[in-house]
């Protein structure tokens, strides 16, 4: 039965052997040899160590192309011209679906035609050797970023291949990323990933793990992201992971975003065991971008400004080409430098905004409601609890495509642009919280002279890509202050 307990060593070995047999490249994985390999890696390629000792927010882009040589060039470019502190390797969608055959075809096509028909780097097909070539070629820590519900083989190969950070988690890489994967099963799959990371950690190779905070990237109330991040952190810690980066995706309201990042850190420190070194990551706006690079730069900069105020340990940047498709390396590097400029200009300033403690208190209270409900649902077992909480709707994510979530809650922005819920479904939030949200949203409805409805949600979904934060009817901008 699913339980939040460490996978026993023999079991770990058994699964490891099993999943490595799934695809020819699994063969090359040898744990002892991999530990030795990692031991040789220079300090500047040790992800956890670099991240945890940073004295300013480190920047990391997203980037992955099918071919190895091109991936090396891309990462070198982002490190050099983009001044990225940390690098990514984003995995293609077929590999995420465990469709290694299709990924191989795509890789072969890419090699033959020179066109990138895969949307990422098929690490499983590149195998241990390919991964190591990448790690050795590039002078910065590199993380595996993907969206894979069953990432066991990917983890086995990339860990052995020298990667020392791995994004994702059973909830955050299921609920927003798939339709039919069973949540309980996904948790078991990730327990393996975490146990493997734990095994490396036990041997001195601290593998950093990063739950994917933004979820669907679309009007996710902060407390939901925080509760899920903490659950994934707990599950990982149980399996021996000691370096955890909790994430959060910008909603665009500066007060709410700064409050959320502070709540994320303090709740993370409270809930996660003391052995874990906690860091935080802030994702620049993950929802729909404006179809205009100039406007996209404004969105990116608002993220940089927020990061300067909240000072997370890491910022995942967007590119001005986010709207259209996978960015050119130049655009990706531009997003990094725009962010760097804003952060470095603003971070030395004391910018303390009114209302952050209040918003943070609300977020913490909401998060505790959700976490309590999860523990209750599992009679104290967080693994079982989270599955049942999603089943009952006590836990939910807006716009979740997964059958494991109800997707019954509806978010909308209040008159100040903060994300609230106007449809709570069965979400485990107490009456007072619901009333606070309702009051804020009815103030907005009043301002706009219309009812709360799906129409408002749809308007809010489009608002930032249409050039504003709140989806007012007719595209209006609401009450504006004056300089006095």
């Amino acid at each position, binding site marked *: 039965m699913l339980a939040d307990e460490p996978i026993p060593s023999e079991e770990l070995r058994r699964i490891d052997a099993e999943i490595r047999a799934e695809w020819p490249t699994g063969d090359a994985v040898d744990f002892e040899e991999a530990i030795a390999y990692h031991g040789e890696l220079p300090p500047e390629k040790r992800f956890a160590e670099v991240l945890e000792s940073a004295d300013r927010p480190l920047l990391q882009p997203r980037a992955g192309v099918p071919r190895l040589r091109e991936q090396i060039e891309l990462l070198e470019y982002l490190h050099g011209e983009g001044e990225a502190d940390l690098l990514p390797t984003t995995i293609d*969608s077929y590999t995420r679906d465990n469709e290694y055959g299709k990924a191989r075809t*795509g890789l072969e096509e890419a090699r033959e035609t020179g066109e990138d*028909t895969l949307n990422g780097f098929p690490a499983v097909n590149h195998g241990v050797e390919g991964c190591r070539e990448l790690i050795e070629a590039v002078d910065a820590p590199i993380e595996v970023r993907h969206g894979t519900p069953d990432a066991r083989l990917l983890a086995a190969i990339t860990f052995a291949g020298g990667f020392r950070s791995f994004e994702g988690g059973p909830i955050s890489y299921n609920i927003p990323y*798939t339709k039919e994967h069973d949540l309980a099963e996904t948790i078991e799959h990730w327990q393996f990933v975490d146990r493997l990371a734990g095994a490396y950690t036990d041997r001195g190779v601290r593998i950093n793990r990063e739950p994917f905070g933004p979820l*669907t990237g679309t009007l996710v109330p902060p407390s939901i992201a925080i509760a899920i991040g903490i659950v994934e952190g707990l599950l990982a810690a149980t399996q021996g992971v000691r370096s955890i980066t909790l994430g959060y995706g910008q909603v665009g309201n500066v007060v709410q975003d700064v409050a959320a990042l502070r709540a994320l850190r303090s709740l993370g420190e409270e809930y996660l065991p003391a052995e874990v070194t906690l860091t935080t990551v802030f994702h620049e706006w993950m*929802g729909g971008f404006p179809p205009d690079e100039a406007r996209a730069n404004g969105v990116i900069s608002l993220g940089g400004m927020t990061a300067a105020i909240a000072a997370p340990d890491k910022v995942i940047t967007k590119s001005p080409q986010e709207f*259209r498709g996978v960015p*050119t390396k130049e655009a990706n590097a531009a997003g990094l430098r725009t962010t760097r400029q804003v952060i470095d200009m603003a971070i030395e300033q004391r910018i303390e905004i009114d209302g952050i403690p209040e918003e943070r208190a609300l977020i913490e209270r909401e998060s505790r409601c959700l976490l309590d409900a999860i523990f209750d649902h599992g009679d104290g077992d967080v693994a079982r609890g989270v599955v049942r909480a999603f089943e009952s709707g006590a836990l939910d994510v807006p716009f979740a495509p997964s059958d494991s979530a109800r997707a019954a809650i509806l978010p909308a922005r209040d008159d100040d642009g903060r994300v609230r819920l106007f449809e709570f479904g069965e979400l485990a939030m107490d009456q007072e919280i619901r009333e606070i949200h309702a009051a804020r949203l009815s103030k907005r409805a009043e301002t706009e002279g219309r009812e709360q409805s799906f129409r408002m949600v749809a308007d809010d*979904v489009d608002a930032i890509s249409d050039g504003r934060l709140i989806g007012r009817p007719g595209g209006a901008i609401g009450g504006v202050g004056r300089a006095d």
Partner: protein
Amino acid sequence: MPKTVVLGVIGSDAHVVGITILEQAFSAAGFDVVNLGVQTSQEEFAEAAVAHDAEAVLVSSLYGHAEQDCRGFHDVLAAHGVDAVTYIGGNLAVGQDEFARTRETFEAMGFDRVFDSETDPTEAIAALERDLRIATVEPERATVRS
């Protein structure tokens, strides 16, 4: 009688927000929408089109694998005897491609219309109404986005 459209995201793509908005917009415009959700296979599209006697099949794809995911799609539809209008829309190519080229590719594959991700739902609705030769139902509701 309202016309039925089948809507879904093809392949292993999980971008759901766009079709959620489209579902609402097409419903508000008077269509019966069968929303198959994300990660829908070619067969599921075909079967749903048959089962609901759909007049149009609306395929969405955002993640950049549309071309691979749609290979042979119109053969599968034909094999199921589906003769509906077919549209595809979203982010149809990996990277910063010219849309004109992308449109050609997908038209060549058999789609009646190809839309980019700047498409406002009202444009797709207007096109479908023309293609199905029906008049706008209650014009003020049809304009779901101002």
